[in-house]
C-alpha cells in the first residue's frame, strides 16, 4: 500500500498581517500548493518562527488558488500565537497543509446554517465562499465576546426570525450576497445580545416545515458553543457537522496525540482530530 501525498510542506511568505482588537490577527500567506488543494474545514500546521517549537494548527479561512495565497484568522492566546503575531510581511514561515477532512454536504439538505463562535469563524467563511460558488442557500451566524475582526455594517438582506435591530453583518459575506447576522454579549451595535444558537433557534422557528427539513447545521467555535449547537441539532433533528480542536504534535496522524472519543456504529473509538477530523458528525462527538 502506498499512502497518497496530500499534504505539502511550504515555506510561506507573509503577504499581509492585519491586527484587530481583542488580540485577533488575520495572516495572509503565499502557499500555492496548499491554496490549490484546500477545501473548507481543513487547516494548516504553522510554524511560529521560533526554534524548537511545535507548530500551531489554524483553520483555513480563505484560499485563492489563482493568486496562490491562503488566509488564517487567529487569536493570540499563549506563547506560540503571541510569537506569531510579531511576524512581519516578507518573513517566511514553514507550513504544512492542507490537512484533515473538511465538511461534506448531506443529501437532501441544500440549505445550511453556519454557526461560528470567536476564532471558530474561519472555516465558516471558507465554507460560505465555497457554497456561494455552488449557489447553495446559506445563512452565517457569528458570535464573539470581543469586537469582530472586521467592521460590521447594516445588512440589506432580510432574514427570517431575526429580532428587531439585529441588522449587523460581515461586509465580505454581504458583498457575496450571503445572509449573515452577528451575536455578542459585549453590547456591540447591530448585534443580538446573546448567543449564536439563540439566533439559530429564532431563525429555525420562523421556517416552514419543508424548508427546515432541507436545512443542516455546520459549526465551529469554543467547546460550550459546540455542545449547544449539537443540542440544537438534536432538538430540531437536523444533521450537523462540527470542527473540533485538540492539542497536536505531528498533525499528520503519526503520534495519536490529538484524539477525541467518537461514537461509531461499532462502539466508542479514539479518533485523531488532525486526519480523521477536524470535522466530525455532531451526534458522534456529542451524543447528548
Amino acid at each position: 500500500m502506498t499512502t497518497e501525498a496530500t499534504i505539502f510542506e511550504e515555506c510561506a511568505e507573509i503577504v499581509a498581517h492585519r491586527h484587530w482588537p481583542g488580540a485577533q490577527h488575520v495572516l495572509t500567506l503565499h502557499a500555492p500548493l496548499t491554496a490549490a488543494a484546500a477545501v473548507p474545514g481543513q487547516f494548516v500546521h504553522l510554524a511560529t518562527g521560533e526554534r524548537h517549537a511545535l507548530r500551531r494548527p489554524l483553520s483555513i479561512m480563505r484560499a485563492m488558488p489563482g493568486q496562490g495565497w491562503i488566509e488564517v484568522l487567529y487569536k493570540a492566546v499563549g506563547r506560540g500565537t503571541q510569537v506569531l503575531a510579531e511576524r512581519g510581511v516578507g518573513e517566511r514561515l514553514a507550513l504544512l497543509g492542507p490537512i484533515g477532512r473538511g465538511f461534506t454536504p448531506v443529501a437532501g439538505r441544500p440549505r445550511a446554517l453556519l454557526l461560528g463562535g470567536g476564532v471558530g469563524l474561519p472555516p465558516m467563511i471558507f465554507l460560505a465562499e465555497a457554497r456561494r460558488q455552488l449557489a447553495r442557500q446559506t445563512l452565517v451566524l457569528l458570535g464573539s465576546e470581543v469586537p469582530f475582526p472586521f467592521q460590521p455594517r447594516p445588512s440589506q438582506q432580510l432574514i427570517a426570525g431575526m429580532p428587531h435591530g439585529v441588522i449587523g453583518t460581515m461586509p465580505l459575506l454581504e458583498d457575496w450576497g450571503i445572509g449573515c447576522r452577528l451575536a455578542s454579549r459585549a453590547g456591540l451595535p447591530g448585534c443580538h445580545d446573546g448567543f449564536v444558537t439563540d439566533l439559530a433557534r429564532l431563525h429555525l422557528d420562523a421556517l416552514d416545515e419543508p424548508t427546515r427539513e432541507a436545512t443542516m447545521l455546520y459549526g465551529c467555535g469554543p467547546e460550550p458553543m459546540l455542545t449547544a449547537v449539537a443540542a440544537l441539532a438534536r432538538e430540531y433533528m437536523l444533521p450537523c457537522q462540527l470542527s473540533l480542536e485538540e492539542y497536536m504534535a505531528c498533525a499528520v496522524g503519526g503520534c495519536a496525540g490529538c484524539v477525541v472519543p467518537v461514537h461509531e456504529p461499532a462502539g466508542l473509538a479514539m479518533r485523531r482530530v488532525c486526519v480523521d477530523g477536524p470535522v466530525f458528525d455532531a451526534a458522534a462527538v456529542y451524543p447528548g
Partner: protein
Amino acid sequence: MTADPRLEVPFCGLTLKNPLVLLSGCVGFGHEYPRVAGFSNAQVGAVCLKGTTGAARPGNPAHRVVETPAGMLNAIGLQNPGVAHVVEHILPTLDFGQTCYIANLSGSTVEEYVAVARQLDDTPLQALEINISCPNVKEGGVTFGNDPDMSARVVAAVRAVTDKPLITKLSPNQADIAANARRCLEAGSDAFAVINTLQGMAVDIHTRRPVLGNVQGGLSGPAIKPIALLKVHQVAQVCVPHGVPIIGQGGIASGTDALEFLIAGASAVGIGTGLFYDPLLCHKVLADLQAYLDTHGFDTIGELTGSLQHSA
C-alpha cells in the same frame, strides 16, 4: 537522494542504508508521514512502529500532548489496535523492501511481552524493540525498565521465543542505566535504544489542573538531548566491548545533534519529536552527515561511532 554506501550501518546482522531511524510512537504504523509530499520511509535506515500490546488499547484521555520549553510532553498511553490486528491488517500493507521495519513491544506483564513477541516472530519484521521504558501506562513499561531484575526477566523471556534481533529500549528514569544495560545484554539483548522519554508534568494555571489527562507524561525533544547523550555515552561503555550497537535518541533536530550521538557511542540515531518541527528533517540530517564525512576525512559513518576524544 541516491543511496550513499558511506552511510550504511551494520546493525545486529541487518544493514541499515543509513543511520537514521524513525522513532516509535511518532510515525504511527508507517503510513502516516508519507501523506507529506517529499517524505518517504525509504529515505531512512529503519522505522520503528507504534508500541504494540497483546490486546487493543484505547490510550489515555485528552490532553495527550503539550509543548514545553524546547520539547514536549506526551501521554498517549500506548493506543494501538493490538498485536493480532497489526499482524493481520497492518504488516501486510508495508513494503519491507523500502526500509527495515521494527516492531515496538509493550505489555503489562512478562507474559504479555512474550505473547506479543511470539506473534511477531513469524512476520517479515526485521527486528523487535522491547519497550520497558514507557512512562505512560499504569503497569509494565517504566516500572519494569527501572528495575534491572525485571528488565532482564522481560528480555530473557522474549529472547526465548524469537530469533529476531532484539533491541532493548532503556529508560533514563533510573539510577544506573549502564548496570541495567549489562543485565539486559546478559539476558540476550542484541542492541539498545537510548533513551526513552523522561517523566514530567505540566500545570494549567487557569484551571489549576494538570494539562495532561494522564497527569504525567514523557518529556522528549531538544530539552532532553544533553541527558540522552550522557546516557548513550554510559551505555556505550558496556556495549562497545561486545560489539552491541546503540540507537541514540532524544532531541535530535539537526545534523549536528545526530553527529553528537554518533561520536558519543551510537551506531544509529533516532528522530521523533524533530519530525514534528520539520517533517522533512531527515533529508537535511543526511546531507549534513555526508558533508561531515567529506570535510573531516572519514570514509564511513561507522568510523564516527564512539570516536569521542577524551579530554586531557
